[in-house]
């Protein structure tokens, strides 16, 4: 069987096994083993690509070029991290007697299913298949958001599903309109919706229909990415979903949605020139970065704080692409890579703190966590330093590349606003995290949190932290080659 098909089959089987009943040890082993194998297969696919071939199957409906390979590797990596952390996460809840058999089945079934859907997104070359895959990610994540079965989780899941479905309806309309714009030039059958085919016939497309299609598709997939003003589901979903699922949302889904946006952007660029969709992306990206500022300053919940940080980062990537210069695109993709390495550390440590205190609200956690959970607090501080783009870590470099590209190009004013927002966000996140970690401890009478134990979840967080730090100084050669290949695709030199 084809390597691409294996890469999809393995997480799907893992989900199937996990969704059935069975002893806990078997489920844990299946999930970690299955996701590790999946990551290995992603690496193998990327290796095949770097060796010079373009893995493809089903009439090119699934096809891995540089961009796909990069997103595939990042998603596979995050899937494995989330699986390892998830095992520890559920064990902690089991020890406190919080897990019902149904929850166990949902957890071990849906996490690999979510990974499957993300990988499916990353290797879709057909815009119809891409839409189907994105819808699958939405459906896989709904019951992860309701996992804790609180009033608020139902609210979050409802908003997520309604907004997500509406976004996807827009994306579908966008896809249909792109297809309609190419009528006459496109043949019948499955391959007519292939992205490669659409880019070929793009110069002859009907401009009005195409424009409308691009706008609808960008808004639709932008909803999934969490670009402002379609970001409102994100803070709610992040607060309610269990941390392993949030990591998949914050990194895997974000990268996948960015992937969709870039594909649409490329069709638009081929047909209408670079300015139309790039301008749209620049606006949405800048808006996302700006929207995050006030909400981070007034934030009352740790996981919502990280959601707004996520909105900021997807905004940074959109700005990087929207600047319309090659260095900006490279910066955006580098940013995606570094963000995928750094964000899990933040979410894992925040998740551990939330679990120990049985809540992620600042009021419930109270200040001074460094005394109660030293390792997680230290990791949270480290990750905050990284995700705010401080030197010498990776996100600093990618942000600098984007800023330089912006000031060198024609968007100096937009870049200045962008820079000001980044500085404000740095201060906001530093203030909030400082409050949690070093602020005044809660009054002596309050209920003591669970003690921090060294378990597999904490180990995963530590490993992720080491990788995030090391990556600032050393990125493996093949990964750099992938980023360059992805830049070449997005800059239109596949």
């Amino acid at each position, binding site marked *: 069987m084809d390597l691409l098909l294996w890469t999809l089959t393995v997480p799907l089987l893992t989900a199937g096994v996990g969704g059935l009943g069975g002893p806990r040890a078997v489920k844990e082993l299946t999930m970690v083993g299955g996701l590790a194998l999946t990551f290995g297969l992603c690496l193998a696919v990327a290796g095949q690509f770097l060796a010079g071939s373009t893995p493809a199957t089903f009439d090119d409906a699934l096809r891995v070029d540089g961009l796909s390979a990069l997103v595939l590797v990042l998603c596979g990596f995050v899937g494995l991290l989330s699986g390892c952390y998830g095992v520890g996460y559920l064990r902690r809840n089991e020890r406190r007697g919080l897990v019902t058999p149904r929850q166990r089945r949902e957890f071990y079934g849906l996490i690999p299913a979510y990974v499957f859907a993300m990988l499916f997104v990353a290797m879709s070359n057909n815009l119809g298949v891409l839409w189907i895959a994105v819808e699958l990610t939405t459906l896989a994540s709904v019951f992860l958001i309701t996992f804790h079965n609180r009033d608020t989780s139902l609210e979050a899941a409802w908003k997520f599903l309604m907004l997500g479905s509406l976004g996807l309806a827009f994306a579908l309309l966008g896809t249909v309109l792109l297809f309609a714009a190419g009528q006459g030039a496109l043949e019948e059958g*499955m391959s007519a919706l292939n992205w490669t085919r659409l880019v070929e016939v793009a110069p002859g497309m009907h401009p009005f229909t195409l424009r409308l299609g691009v706008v609808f598709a960008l808004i639709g997939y932008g909803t999934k990415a969490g670009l402002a003003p379609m970001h409102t589901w994100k803070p709610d979903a992040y607060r309610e979903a269990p941390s392993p699922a949030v990591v998949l949302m914050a990194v895997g889904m974000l990268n996948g949605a960015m992937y969709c946006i870039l594909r649409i952007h490329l069709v638009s660029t081929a047909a209408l020139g670079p300015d139309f969709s790039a301008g749209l992306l620049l606006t949405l990206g800048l808006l996302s970065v700006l929207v995050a500022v006030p909400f981070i300053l007034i934030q009352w919940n740790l996981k919502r704080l990280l959601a707004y940080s996520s909105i900021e980062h997807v905004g940074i990537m959109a700005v990087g692409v929207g600047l319309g210069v090659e260095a900006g695109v490279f910066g955006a993709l580098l940013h995606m890579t570094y963000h995928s390495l750094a964000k899990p550390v933040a979410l894992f440590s925040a998740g551990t703190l939330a679990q120990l205190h049985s809540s992620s609200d600042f009021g419930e956690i109270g200040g001074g966590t460094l005394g109660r959970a030293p390792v997680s607090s230290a990791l949270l501080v480290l990750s905050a330093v990284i995700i705010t783009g401080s030197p010498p870590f990776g996100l600093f470099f990618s942000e600098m590349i984007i800023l330089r590209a912006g000031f060198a190009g024609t968007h100096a004013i937009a870049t200045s606003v962008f820079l000001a927002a980044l500085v404000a966000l740095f201060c906001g996140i530093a203030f909030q995290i400082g409050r949690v970690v070093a602020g005044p401890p809660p009054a002596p009478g309050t209920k003591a949190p669970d003690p921090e134990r060294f378990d597999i979840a904490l180990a995963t967080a530590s490993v992720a932290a080491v990788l995030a730090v090391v990556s600032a100084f050393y990125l493996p050669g093949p990964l750099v080659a992938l980023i360059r290949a992805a830049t070449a695709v997005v800059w239109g030199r596949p």
Partner: protein
Amino acid sequence: MTANVLILCAAGMLVTAYLMVGQKALFTTIRLYGLQSFLLGLVAATIAIAESRHELFITAALTVVLKAILIPWFLMRTVDRIGIHREVEPFLNVPASLLICLGLTVVGYRVSTAFQEGARGVGHHLIGVALSLLLIGLFMMVSRKKAITQILALLTVENAVFLVAVGVTSGMPLIVELGISFDVILAVLVLGVLVQRIVGRFESMDISRLSKLKG
């Protein structure tokens, strides 16, 4: 002849959308949605006959079976189980809602004139209806409080997208269409389960009560 049938069906879809906006009984609203989907199936079947494109028959059959029969049946069963049969007072009263929908229809038709001429000469009408339907669906989504009505609004938007697909393109590739239909069914199932959980928890499916999460 074909053109007349197509325009009649499309206009019928628009009428059902208006009736849905003016309707408070949930069962009737669901039946109206079923009728709307049936008309969509009829549009696809008419085009399939007129241009002897057989794969469109599958689209038509799929639309009728899934959207005109299966989804309405499932939604009615959900309503029955919950035992809430009427929409509470919507955020906006019915005459004002209908007036707004009229405005939206004008906008939809205005935008549709900029499209390229459809192969059948009725392309503009179909796109005009589809865009109006889309806008009315969006309006329903923001103006109604009941979870079931919001699902119906979403499905109306979905129907509008399919009308564009049938009316302007030579039909989406079959596999893609099957995949999309499968996803839509799955989404409705998930939404139904979620509604039941919400009702079980809040003893109401009034969405305006879901407002704890802010900031």
